């Protein structure tokens, strides 16, 4: 029984210059406890797909079941079982780390005592204890990311959606975040769906990769399988082969004409 399954999930935006098919029809199956990497060029439809799966954006076509609940019929039940960390996070610069964590717990229905205890537990787990009384703008990039993650984990979700979780982080913070994602899966069996542009991240973190291009799934395999299928030495080469965006052809025109 997959924990996420979608059939023809699609989203068309109406703009002033006509309809834009951001996602044309995604068929996706995610097993429980899997770390799934969603790859694809900019504009491929990764973020739109995540926003649909997290109930933020209503699909214009198709269907999906997330954590045992129909996305369209029972979005509230889906929300109780998933966590989502957006690309740019979601911290209010007027609030402290503690108040953001406590409010998040209370938004998930905890009473004040439980939300406070959970905030301290999360802070302890993610190395934020010293920062609890700081305003969020005073955090470094890595600290912000850890707080974003703590917010997404407040209610111990079955599925965690991460949109480009390590973009802008230094190498040390990235490695820490990878370790955390692995720990979540190993200790709590959390299913993780993440998008990334870093192919080393996809290679070392994901059990399975789904490559999206032009709003559809164009390849789906384990990192090793993907490389083997395209006879590629690196995931980078396999990715370029799959998306048809090979290295720029050598330009024979002289630079100065």
């Amino acid at each position, binding site marked *: 029984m997959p924990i996420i399954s979608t059939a023809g999930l699609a989203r068309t935006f109406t703009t002033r210059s006509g309809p834009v098919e951001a996602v044309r029809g995604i068929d996706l199956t995610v097993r429980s406890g899997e770390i799934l990497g969603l790859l694809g060029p900019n504009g491929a439809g990764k973020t739109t797909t995540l926003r649909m799966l997290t109930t933020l954006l*209503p699909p214009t076509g198709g269907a999906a079941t997330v954590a045992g609940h129909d996305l369209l019929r029972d979005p*509230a039940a889906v929300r109780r079982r998933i966590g989502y960390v957006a690309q740019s996070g979601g*911290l*209010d610069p007027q609030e402290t780390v503690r108040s953001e964590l406590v409010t998040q717990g209370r*938004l*998930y229905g905890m009473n004040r005592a439980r939300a406070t205890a959970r905030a301290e537990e999360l802070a302890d787990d993610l190395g934020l204890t010293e920062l609890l009384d700081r305003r969020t703008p005073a955090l470094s990039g890595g600290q912000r990311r850890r707080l974003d993650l703590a917010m997404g984990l407040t209610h111990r979700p079955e599925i965690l959606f991460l949109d480009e979780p390590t973009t802008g982080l230094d190498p040390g913070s990235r490695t820490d975040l990878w370790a955390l994602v692995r720990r979540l899966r190993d200790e709590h069996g959390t299913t993780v769906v993440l998008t990334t542009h870093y192919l080393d991240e996809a290679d070392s973190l994901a059990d399975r990769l789904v490559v999206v291009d032009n709003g559809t799934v164009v390849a789906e395999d384990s990192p090793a399988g993907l490389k083997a299928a395209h006879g590629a030495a690196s995931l980078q080469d396999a990715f370029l082969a799959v998306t048809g965006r090979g290295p720029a052809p050598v330009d024979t025109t002289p630079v100065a004409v």
Partner: protein
Amino acid sequence: MLLHDTALLFDRYARQTLRSPFQIFFGALMPLLYLLLFGPLLTGLPLGTEGDSWQILVPGLLLQLGLFGASFAGFSIIMEKNWGVFDRMRVTPVSRLALLLGRVLRDAALFVFQAALLVLIALPMGLRAPLAGILIGFGFVALLSVALASLSYALALKLRTPQEFGPAINTLAMPAMLLSGLMLPMTLAPGWLDALSRLMPFRHLVDAVREAYVGHYTTPTLLYGVLVALGVAALAVTVGTRTFQKAIA
């Protein structure tokens, strides 16, 4: 669920407002300037109504405060959207109606507080009105704030370009202010303008508050004002809730 979530969000937004004295007092500045620098001009003029000029002007200024304050409330949600806070909350199971009501009730509390400040300052300037009438006036400020803030949040969510928000609100609020006779009563207006202004819902609100300020609590004008205010508020909250319930790109 709804009550719990609304109380939680009201608390969050009220604290944010309390941390910003600028936000608390700045909103009262424009009506205060009218009170101090425009009010004295009216004291000797025949306004064609019962009650003195302060009983005419202060109700108008209270609603002006609600009109301009609440209709710009949507700016805060544009900021929250940019910070990602709005989406972060929408991913949680929090009640969608509470996401609207928590804010709207904070706004109503803020504008009633500013209205009270304005009335306190109007007293030494010459305002005399019965306490019940003044309290009824605050009730109208609260209803108007709830209605306009709901619409303002809905509009702010719908606009694709936030830079359009300010001009759009100004374009709507200015004629609303002029057509409802907030500054001077519509009894001074020629027939066509008076007739036109009756189509503007706020006209009936300000007329009702002026009735209350001269101590008439059982007249059709007051009843009509209450009905219009309740109707507009109910309609606006419905529009607001629908907009919040529909996921927004």
